[in-house]
């Protein structure tokens, strides 16, 4: 058992050692401990994967965590097919990002701190995927969020970085609010929160309803949607997607590891893990599918016009995560996780490639100021190209197989299947377009930056290019484990997942499958072609279109004004109420007024009474508080009887 426990514990040990001794003892050698630890975890994960592939499943409780009456939860370990593949994703990408960071973070004054956080993150993510109960999942869930907060705000002197970290944490709390209630609901109605008991007993809740505020809701739907709230936050889906693009303030290796390959996919992992719950509620399933499809399209359109290379890739991530939810929503959990797997490699590669470009350009992010880079950094260019071909869905590369599996199963999906299939196909075209927009603007044409930048252009050091090459192999070949029967494969990964994720119902014919594949290939090449015309052959066209459709362009450029909207309706009012109503009126005038003024009040009763009618804001506030109190009390008393 110790070899399984060591998988998360090794990075934890590296974190503890580095955070305590890193600053004065290891300094610029801090990466050795972190890399050795994650390498150990990776080797153990590969061995474990082989065991699971041979048919073994590991599930046991390590030690008791919280015991309170009938509530009893442990720290445990569950390694089945789903977890095994996540272990591979997490440890392999983490290892490569660790190696890459040696070059990328070289000379940073927080070097030891950076590697400490990376280790802590790896530990947390491994705790998340190996959990055998909901509360441990929640532990990992919040812990990866914390590491994300630390790493986004890694350069904390920068206000934008500190703000972005805080935003990520708080926006995620909105999702976790629902997730936490979902956990409590499951405990309340099933009496346990470990997976085995939940999945064994969830069907007993079928047909039961729950009354809230006078309405009856289907219990399983409520539970599933509450859990999904958490996924929406963590995986940056509408309406909680706003934190992920800002998270790009963090160092680029962090964007690759946390905000592309691993943490943000936790939501997809969770929904897939809870497929026995979701599958029992059609409403929940459709919500997942639609949320995924809409987010996917929404983010892809924003990515079309952005100029910040990391933000384009970030919106692309939001979009691809939507794809995975789309898959889960139509019951194709296996395809969703398969896409998670391939996406981890090509998207991490895109980010690390962008990091390599930034490294050469002195931190420049604007693709309009790049150009012609393929001459200066061939390794970065070729690997970036492979990743782009993969995400665009060019046949034979990793992204093609997983995307195609999703589209085909969506086509076969239930009530919303055809709709989300259409949206998914459209997104595939947009994805191909914006991916090649980066390629053409950054790597082709003439260099458009400053002379100083041009003078410094160079290929990145080996510690950075080596991970790029390894990831490129992944972006190329990771899909080959799921080649469908139609194309002469045996869809190994689909069968591998079957015991955990089930087998989606397929009723379409071979001809239809050929059609779906054909359309998606055609759409991908169309996207690439248009991009080539726009940014290689006739660069004046996009400028003309931008001027012609100014309104659309501005809306997309401003990301549909969602941030501004939230700022107006949530952030500013909260601070305004706190400062002007609660501090200024309720506490200072009403409550203090009553306490300090009881004698006065009696004396000048008539005067006060007159004031009541003049409609002062403070009186509204007080009567609201009292009214709320009275009403809620009555509701509750009535409810308990």
């Amino acid at each position, binding site marked *: 058992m110790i070899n399984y426990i060591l998988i998360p514990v090794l990075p934890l040990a590296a974190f503890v050692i580095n955070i305590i001794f890193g600053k004065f003892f290891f300094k610029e050698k801090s990466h050795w401990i972190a890399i050795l630890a994650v390498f150990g975890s990776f080797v153990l994960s590969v061995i474990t994967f082989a065991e699971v592939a041979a048919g073994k499943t590991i599930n046991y409780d390590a030690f008791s965590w919280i015991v309170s009456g009938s509530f009893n939860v442990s720290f445990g370990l569950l390694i089945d097919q789903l977890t095994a593949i996540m272990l591979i994703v997490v440890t392999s990408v983490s290892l490569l990002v660790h190696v890459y960071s040696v070059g990328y973070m070289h000379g940073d004054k927080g070097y030891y701190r950076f590697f400490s956080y990376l280790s802590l993150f790896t530990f947390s993510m491994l705790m998340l995927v190996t959990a055998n109960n909901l509360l441990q999942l929640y532990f990992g869930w919040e*812990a990866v969020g914390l590491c994300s907060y630390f790493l986004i705000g890694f350069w904390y002197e920068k206000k934008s970085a500190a703000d972005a970290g805080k935003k990520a944490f708080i926006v995620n709390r909105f999702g976790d609010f629902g997730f936490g209630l979902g956990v409590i609901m499951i405990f309340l109605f099933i009496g346990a929160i470990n997976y085995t008991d939940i999945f064994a007993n969830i069907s007993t809740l079928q047909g039961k309803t729950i009354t809230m505020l006078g309405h009856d809701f289907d219990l399983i739907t409520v539970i599933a949607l509450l859990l999904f709230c958490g996924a929406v936050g963590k995986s940056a889906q509408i309406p909680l997607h706003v934190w992920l693009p800002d998270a790009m303030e963090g160092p680029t290796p962090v964007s690759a590891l946390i905000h592309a390959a691993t943490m943000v996919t936790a939501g997809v992992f969770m929904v897939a893990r809870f497929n026995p719950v979701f599958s029992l509620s059609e409403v929940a399933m459709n919500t997942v599918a639609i949320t995924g499809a809409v987010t996917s399209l929404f983010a892809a359109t924003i990515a079309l016009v952005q100029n910040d290379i990391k933000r384009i890739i970030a919106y692309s991530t939001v979009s691809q995560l939507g794809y995975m939810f789309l898959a889960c929503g139509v019951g194709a959990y296996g395809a969703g996780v398969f896409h998670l797997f391939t996406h981890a490699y090509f998207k991490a590669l895109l980010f690390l490639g962008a990091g390599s470009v930034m490294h050469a350009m002195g931190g420049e992010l604007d693709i309009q100021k790049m150009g012609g880079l393929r001459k200066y950094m061939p390794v970065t260019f070729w690997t970036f190209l492979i990743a782009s071909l993969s995400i665009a869905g060019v046949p034979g590369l990793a992204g093609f197989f997983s995307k195609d599996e999703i589209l085909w199963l969506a086509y076969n999906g239930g009530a919303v299947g055809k709709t989300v299939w259409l949206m998914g196909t459209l997104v595939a075209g947009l994805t191909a377009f914006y991916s090649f927009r980066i390629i053409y603007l950054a790597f082709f044409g003439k260099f458009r930056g400053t002379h100083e930048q041009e003078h410094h252009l160079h290929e990145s050091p080996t510690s950075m290019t080596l991970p790029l090459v390894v990831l490129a192999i992944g972006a190329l070949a990771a899909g080959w484990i799921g080649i469908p029967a139609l194309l002469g494969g045996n869809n190994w990964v689909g069968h591998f997942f079957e015991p955990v994720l089930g087998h989606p119902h397929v009723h379409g014919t071979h001809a239809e499958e050929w059609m779906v594949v054909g359309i998606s290939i055609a759409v991908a090449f169309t996207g690439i072609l248009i991009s080539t015309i726009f940014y290689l052959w006739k660069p004046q066209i996009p400028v003309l279109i931008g001027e012609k459709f100014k309104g659309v362009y501005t809306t997309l450029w401003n990301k549909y004004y969602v941030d501004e909207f939230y700022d107006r309706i949530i952030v500013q009012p909260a*601070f305004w109420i706190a400062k002007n109503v609660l*501090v200024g009126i309720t506490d200072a005038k009403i409550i203090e007024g009553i306490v300090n003024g009881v004698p006065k009040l009696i004396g000048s009763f008539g005067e006060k009474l007159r004031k009541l009618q003049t409609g002062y804001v403070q009186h509204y506030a007080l009567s609201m508080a009292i009214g709320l109190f009275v009403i*809620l009390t009555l509701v509750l008393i009535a409810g308990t009887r």
Partner: protein
Amino acid sequence: MQTGHDAHISTPVENTGSSPLLRSLLLVPVIGLVFYLGALAVGVIKYPVLSWVIFLPIVGAIALLFIPRKNEKLIKMTAFVLSVVVFLMCIPLFTNFDKTTSNMQFVEKYAWVPAFNINYAVGIDGISMLFVLLSALLTILCVTVSWNAITDKVKEFYASLLLLEGAMIGVFCSLDLFLFYIFWEAMLIPMFIMIGVWGGPNRVYAAIKFFLYTLIGSLLMLIGIIVLFFYNGRSFDILQMMTTNYPYDMQLILFWAFFSAFAVKVPMFPVHTWLPDAHTEAPTAGSVILAGILIKMGAYGFLRFNMPFFPQATVAMAPAMMVLSVIAIIYGAVICLGQTDLKRLIAYSSVSHMGFVTLGIFALNFQGIQGGILQMINHGIVTGALFLCVGMVYERTHTRAIADYGGAAAPLPVYAGLFMIFTLAAVGLPGTNGFVGEFLILVGGFTASKLLGALAATGIIIGAAYMLWLYQNMFFVRTNPKLLGLTDINEREILTLLPLVILVFWIGFYPNTFLSFMDASVQHLIERISTAGQLQLSQHLGAIPR
């Protein structure tokens, strides 16, 4: 002048710290401790633990007054040694506690004023036991944190602190209502003095406000105590009162009488406005004791008196209490967003956190009550720690305005790291103690009422918002030039915070050490309430089918 003053005080401490003679002398208490623990383990030492830990600080406080005023070092060392000895003497409470029974343990009972049937009776159960330990622990930390901060009337300060410790422990141990009331009011005096003498510029206003609020609440309780005395056949015996069944109407009236005393202490919305003033003006040690122990006594009072004495009234009033708690959670959290003063923000966050505590308690189920008690301990640890932290930085900057900070992570890295740990515990991150308490309370609250449970859970969103906002404004972004020359916290300060860091993670990862002490007592309390609750339903609802 300020810096010269500090230097004058810190130099001798450093010198003596490195002297070999003093180092070898340090071995004496260490060896003594080993012998003491060994003797405890084999059961050689037997002493009336509770009386010792109540009266040793009080006697010590008096003894302190006889030390010459000029010898500040000796005064501080005596106070420190006394507080440590008191804590060590509490250890049997931990090791010899019988977790299987809900009966009072370590009971001592002597007749005191036989004419009025007043006894000196003390004892603890699973509900009070942890608070005794927490009081003893926090007192030590208050002594060490005040080491350089208090330079005026040093003798009186430490005497007040020790007096306060004795009275606080007395409150948690009393099994006689008269004795309880004595300790309850006695506690007010040193606290009043601490705020009024060593406090900030507005200290007199804050001290009087604190005193009046709590006194008016207590007077109603006093009337209730007298009624109970006569109703129970002229007896102040708390254990007897717990088994008496009072008429429903009387229960209701007395519930509110006791409630008024305890609600002010918690403090529940809307009687919370004394707390920000008291916290802001109090010296660091005063804030720590206020946040760590004093405001816990309100919630403790609910558990010890309101609920077992008046179970039917409790069941009837629980929805109202829960609504007030939820208002406190949200109101206290939102108002934090509007604060400009460090201590005021933490004070208001206490209102929100104590809302969680009372929500759990009045959910009247196992997880709620147990979570509520644990959260009281947690809040004592975390908010106590935050006030210690604020005190430490205040000693360096002499400002509490949040706007005067910024970028402090660069000059104060260790301090920033420790502050982060407590911030995370305050926002209830899993793996810290705050999570365990809040989660159990939400389980309990949600079981009792889905609507209120859900509303309460919004408090954790706002909680994250204001704590991270505070942290960012203190430690991140631009480094305020005024902060550049600051020295990071020293060994004394790190050691002051270290026990609390350990507790944050201990309770976070293995809360069962502490939860298991409460099991039997909480179960007993729930049985008392649920029997009465059914009784009440049958009495008042007659034949209404359920």
